[in-house]
Every structure is written in structure tokens, then in C-alpha cells.
């Protein structure tokens, strides 16, 4: 009991005197807050990008591409192949036809808002079944385009990030004139960066004859994927690869997500080391300016453990304050921040929003506490080992 009350007394004394050491405590807090801001904000980029890609894929949809193609962009399917794919077993049916959409996937040069520089915005040519295949599709503004015309609808992300993609405007590119008649959303997925148009119109505009690039098909259920794939692979009339849509997008995002995470963790780790040094310096300063006080306490009979605990408590609370400030600043500045980047596997743009999740905030604060613990440990031990007579003599 005595021990606990001793520790408590010294710790409270320590914490109450922090304001007297505002300068050096401020340095520790700012240092740790800086690290947490960088860690949280860089990881929120990876989180946001990953989320956009993840939501894009579904397990009950299968993507059929030409074998050898590494993305929708490089795939190509003839009309005969498309007919066969649409008749494969394992697909959901609506009346006489299966729920499958033969699509084209190309890019178009449109300036990015903000930088004013050209960006490769993806354009998807779709069939009327496309919205049945993607049940999450909904129009949020305007209306769906009429098939057989040159009208287009644009995704919410595309509309926000690129110039002239609002209802009522017209996309002019080369000899194409495409009026925008609606804005759609698909639950935050990557399709929201796309412009959708009748696949027949796009075939003409991009000189693709009667060919397509991919077929996106809705499976009867997640389990019928194998039957669907095996039937197509075994069919000598088609030369295709079949993947679950979720798998496809996961693979597309892997390189970029791990690059961002690698850079983020690397920078934060190095900065963390720097901040630990900063915290150590701060706590050393705190201990050495008070070495006389500490020696007095120990001369009065306070035990060394309570001194160690009090120093650690001080550094941990500074770290906690720094971590909280850093996390909140990162949240305020970056959560929901809209941006777009390039998906390296198709060279097309992906719009996404930074996501500062509670998990990331927790990670930031725990990281701050670890830094505080490491930063306080050595000075605490030093305070405890201080020889009483010489410390009392020190100025």
C-alpha cells in the first residue's frame, strides 16, 4: 500500500510539473504527433485504394478474358466466342438469356481536375444486361443512357475527378461527341471511375469491328464457378481464361497496395526511430533538470521503482497526447480525401478516397505509446541510478 501511494505521489508530482517544462515536453509531443500523422495518412492511402479495389470484386461474378491477357485492357474476344461464353452452364438466367454482359474496356484522354493534365479515364462499353450483372449499380443523377445512341453515364468518382463529366455536358474527343446524361454509383467500387457507353457505339468509335474484350457473367451461385470455368476451358472453340471477379481485382491492386504500404511503414519506422531519440532526449532533459529533486525524494526514502514508474508515466502520457493529436489531425485532414491514381496494370485511372479507419487510429496511438515507452526507459533507469550525494550537489 505504501509502495503504491509512493508511486502515485511521485507520478502525480511529475505530471503536475510538466507545464514547467513546456518547451521540451512540447518537442516530444510534436515529434511523436508528426510520426503518427505520417504513418496514419500514408496508410490511409493504401487503405482507401485497397477498399475501392476490394469492393469491385464479387465472388458471384466471373470475368472471362482471352487466355494470355493480363488485364481487361489487353483482352480480346470475337463475337462467336462471346456467344459460346454466354451459353455456358453455371450462369444465372433471366428468361431465355443468361445474365452476362460482353464488354469493351478502353481509355480516353480527359484532363484531371486540379492538375489540368491529361489522364487515362477508363471507358466501358456495356450491353443492356450490364446493370443486371452488377446489382449494386444505381443512377444517382440524371438517367441511364439509351442503348443505340452515343449517350454515356459516368461514375461518381470520374465525375468528381475529371473535367467536363457532369450531366448535361458533352465529351468531345477526336471525332466522338458523347453527351453525359447521368451519374451512377456502384457502392464505392472501381467502376465509379469509369464512363459507361453502349458497347456497339464504342466498337465504332474505337474501330473494334464486332469484337469485344471481356464477358462479365453472373453465376448461379458462388459454387457454380468451377463448373462454368471447366466447361469453357475444355471447350476447344474458345481460348479463354476465367477468373472470379474478386480475384481479378485483388491481383490488380496487389502491387500498388504493397508498394504504398511498404513506403508508408518504412518511412514511419525510420521517423519512429528519430522520434524515439527525440523522446529520449526530452526525458533525459526532464530528468537532468530535476536530478536534485529526484535525489531529494530518494534521500527522503522514496524507493527507486516509484521514480522509474513516474518517469515512464510522464513519457507515456506525452506520447499518448502526441499520438492522439497526430491521429486526429490525420483524420481531419485526410479522411475521405478524394483523389485518383493510375492502376499500373491497365494504365487507367482509379478514383478513391483516403480512409482513416478506427483501426489505423488505434495503430497510430499504439505506435506512439511504444515510442513513449522506449523513450522513457533509459532516462528512467538513469534517474533511479543517480547517486544521491552527487546529484544533490549538482546545480
Amino acid at each position: 500500500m505504501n509502495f503504491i501511494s509512493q508511486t502515485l505521489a511521485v507520478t502525480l508530482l511529475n505530471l503536475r510539473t510538466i507545464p514547467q517544462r513546456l518547451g521540451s515536453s512540447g518537442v516530444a509531443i510534436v515529434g511523436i504527433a508528426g510520426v503518427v500523422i505520417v504513418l496514419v495518412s500514408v496508410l490511409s492511402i493504401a487503405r482507401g485504394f485497397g477498399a475501392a479495389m476490394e469492393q469491385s470484386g464479387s465472388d458471384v461474378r466471373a470475368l472471362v478474358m482471352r487466355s494470355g491477357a493480363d488485364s481487361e485492357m489487353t483482352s480480346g474476344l470475337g463475337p462467336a466466342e462471346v456467344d459460346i461464353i454466354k451459353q455456358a452452364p453455371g450462369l444465372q438466367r433471366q428468361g431465355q438469356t443468361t445474365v452476362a454482359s460482353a464488354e469493351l474496356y478502353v481509355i480516353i484522354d480527359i484532363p484531371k481536375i486540379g492538375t489540368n493534365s491529361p489522364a487515362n479515364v477508363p471507358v466501358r462499353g456495356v450491353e443492356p444486361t450490364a446493370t443486371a450483372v452488377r446489382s449494386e449499380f444505381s443512377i444517382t443523377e440524371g438517367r441511364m443512357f439509351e442503348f443505340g445512341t452515343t449517350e454515356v453515364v459516368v461514375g461518381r468518382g470520374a465525375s468528381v475527378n475529371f473535367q467536363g463529366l457532369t450531366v448535361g455536358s458533352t465529351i468531345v474527343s477526336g471525332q466522338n461527341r458523347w453527351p453525359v446524361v447521368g451519374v451512377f454509383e456502384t457502392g464505392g467500387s472501381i467502376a465509379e471511375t469509369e464512363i459507361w457507353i453502349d458497347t456497339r457505339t464504342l466498337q465504332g468509335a474505337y474501330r473494334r469491328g464486332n469484337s469485344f474484350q471481356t464477358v462479365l457473367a453472373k453465376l448461379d451461385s458462388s459454387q457454380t464457378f468451377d463448373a462454368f470455368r471447366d466447361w469453357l476451358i475444355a471447350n476447344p472453340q474458345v481460348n479463354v481464361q476465367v477468373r472470379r471477379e474478386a480475384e481479378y481485382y485483388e491481383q490488380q491492386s496487389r502491387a500498388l497496395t504493397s508498394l504504398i504500404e511498404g513506403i508508408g511503414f518504412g518511412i514511419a519506422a525510420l521517423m519512429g526511430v528519430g522520434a524515439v531519440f527525440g523522446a529520449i532526449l526530452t526525458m533525459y532533459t526532464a530528468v537532468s533538470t530535476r536530478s536534485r529533486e529526484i535525489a531529494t525524494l530518494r534521500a527522503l526514502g522514496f524507493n527507486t521503482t516509484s521514480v522509474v514508474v513516474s518517469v515512464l508515466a510522464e513519457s507515456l502520457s506525452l506520447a499518448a497526447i502526441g499520438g492522439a493529436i497526430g491521429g486526429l489531425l490525420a483524420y481531419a485532414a485526410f479522411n475521405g480525401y478524394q483523389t485518383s491514381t493510375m492502376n499500373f496494370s491497365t494504365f487507367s485511372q482509379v478514383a478513391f478516397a483516403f480512409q482513416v479507419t478506427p483501426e489505423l487510429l488505434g495503430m497510430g496511438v499504439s505506435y506512439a505509446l511504444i515510442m513513449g515507452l522506449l523513450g522513457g526507459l533509459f532516462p528512467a533507469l538513469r534517474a533511479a541510478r543517480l547517486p544521491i550525494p552527487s546529484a544533490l550537489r549538482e546545480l
Partner: protein
Amino acid sequence: MKFMPLLWSSLWRKKIRTIFTLLSVFVAFLLFGLLMTIRGAFSFGVDIAGLDRLVLIHKVALIMPLPVSYKERLAATEGVAIASHQTWFGGVYQNPANFFAQMVVEPEPFMKIYPEFVIPDDQVKAWLADRQGAIVGVDLAKRFGWKVGDRIPITGTIWQPKQGQTWEFNVVGMYDGAAGVDKTQFFFRYDYLDENRADGQGLVGWYVVKISDPSQAQQMGARFDAMFANSSAETKTTTEKGFVEGFAKQVGDIGAIMIAILVAVLFTMLLVAANTMAQSVRERTSEMGVLKTLGFSNASILALVLGESVLIAVLGGSLGLGVSWLIVQQGDPTNGMLPIFILPNRDVVIGGVMIVVLGLVAGALPAVNAMNLKITDALRRS
């Protein structure tokens, strides 16, 4: 200089504190070096992009092909030194994770347009003689352990051969270049592609035109675009520099993010260093008084404190920059996504200046305080 021993001994007055200050400055400049490298890597070589080279792409999008026939018309235009086309092949070597750029080019004009790619003469001859020949960057060759004479199979994703899916190439040579040149590309001959592809004959990716007078770039670009206006394949011409910049901007403003992080890092380190210096000077108040009593002028006290702080910054900072340089020498850690992974000389110089500035700013306040100290106050304070 005669005060160096005094500086040195006051530096080590409190060993632990000095070591940790050195370490924080070290980490700050280690980060400086690495972040500048990342920033440079994401600008994809814009610094060396030629101003006398124009890039013509299809107006609608980069992926739309242009007819090979444009070459004659471009070459016949006044002010054009040389015109040639290139095509993105986008094939896969063994597995998609082995990404690198494969470009289809016309060897002779290609080598004239890009003097920065250095190829030994005998290898140039071998390339001109071998249709399936390919010239690879030295960094790329190192990555996969290729040697001249190796046969490389690459699976086509965009262009399929008439038979099967695999294209075969002979490595006939390697190109090298100055720092900052992308040495991870794979160049092979257009005639090989065009004769053997299943479809798309006569189509090329884009044109690169070298003009005689770089100051005419804008006008030349406008003239080219006018030449092909209202055709089935309209063009959009930019300088190569503009083209690379545009590409980098599509990835996002990585440069701004890196600078923002650096500002946070350096600001924090400045606070840490300044705080430590202030503390160290405060502890030595009476010593300063003694020095002044001995006849040290105000200016020399100022210089002593500033010198100490700059010394710490220089020791820690140059070590940090040096280590970052060593790390960067190991090359691109991402397997081909960032081909130009170097620490530019310009940034090393900037780093050196920052080190000195950091030292001066961190020491400024304590130094001025020490200078203004009255001897009587200083001596009384102990």
C-alpha cells in the same frame, strides 16, 4: 580553428545527449535522402527527357494505334530532323510479376533519336543483322541474369504471333547510360513484330519526332496536329518532357507528399536539436561567464555555440545522407516499378545546405542568449 578542441570537448560534455542528438539528425537526413529518391523515381525521368523530341499520340487515347504511314509525312515536314515510331508490347516474361517495359522500335532511327542509350558498335551491327534481336538495359539484364546470346521467350498480351502465344527474342546487346537513364527497358525490332503478328499490321503505338530547333516545339506540334486533323486518327503532340510529366501526374502528386513528409521530419528534428542546444547552453551558463571573464568577445561566444550546433548537424547529417546514398546504390526495391532509382546530385547539394541551415537555426537562439549574458549574472547563477 584553434578553438576546435574546445568545441570538441564541450560536445562530449554529456556523451549520451550528444549521441542521441547525432542520431536524430542522422535519421532525419537518412529520410531526406530516401524520400528525395522516391520523389525522383516517381517523376519517371522527367529531368532527362529531351526538349527537342516531340511525342505524337492518338488524340483519343494513348492505347489507340496510329497508321505506320504517318512516318513519311512527318519526315517530309520542314524542321524535322528524324521521325520514328514506337509501340508498347506489354508482354509477360515467365509471370506477370516480372514486369518490365518492352518497346517495339526501328533500330536505326531509334538510336539516332536517343543518343543517351549507349550501345557498343558490334552489338549495334548484330542488332541490325538479326530480326529477332533485342537490346536490353543493363539493369534489366542484371535483374534476370541475361547475357548476350540468350534466347528470351515472351508471351504476347496485346499482340499474338500467327502461331502460338510466345514470341522469341535473341539478346544481341545491352545498352548503358548516365545516371538517371532508365536502364530497365527491352527494345526489339518493328519488322519482326509486324511480319509475325496475327492482326494489326501497319499499326504503331506513337511517334517520336526529333526536331532541329527545340524553340519551335510548340509550333511544330501544332503543325503536326493540323496535318492529321479530320483524319480517322487525329493526333496530339507534346514535348517528351510534357509527356513524361503528364504520365507522372497521372500517378498522383507523389512529389508533394514526399516534400510534406520531409517538412514534418525536418521541423521536428529542428525542434529536438534546438531544444537540446538550449539545454546544453543553459547548463554551461557559469562556464560562459568564465569564458567572458577571460576575455572572449561576444562574437566568439556566439561563434562557439553556433559552431557546436553546426558541428553536430554536419556530423549526423552527412552520415545520414551517406548511408541513404549507400542504400539507394542497391537499386530499385520494387522489382521494376521504379526504374530510375537514384539520389540526384542536386538533392545531395540541397541536403548539404539543409544540414548547415539546420545547425545554424537550432543554435541561433541559445547562441544569442549566451552572447547577451552579463558576466555578473552568469557567474551568480550557479
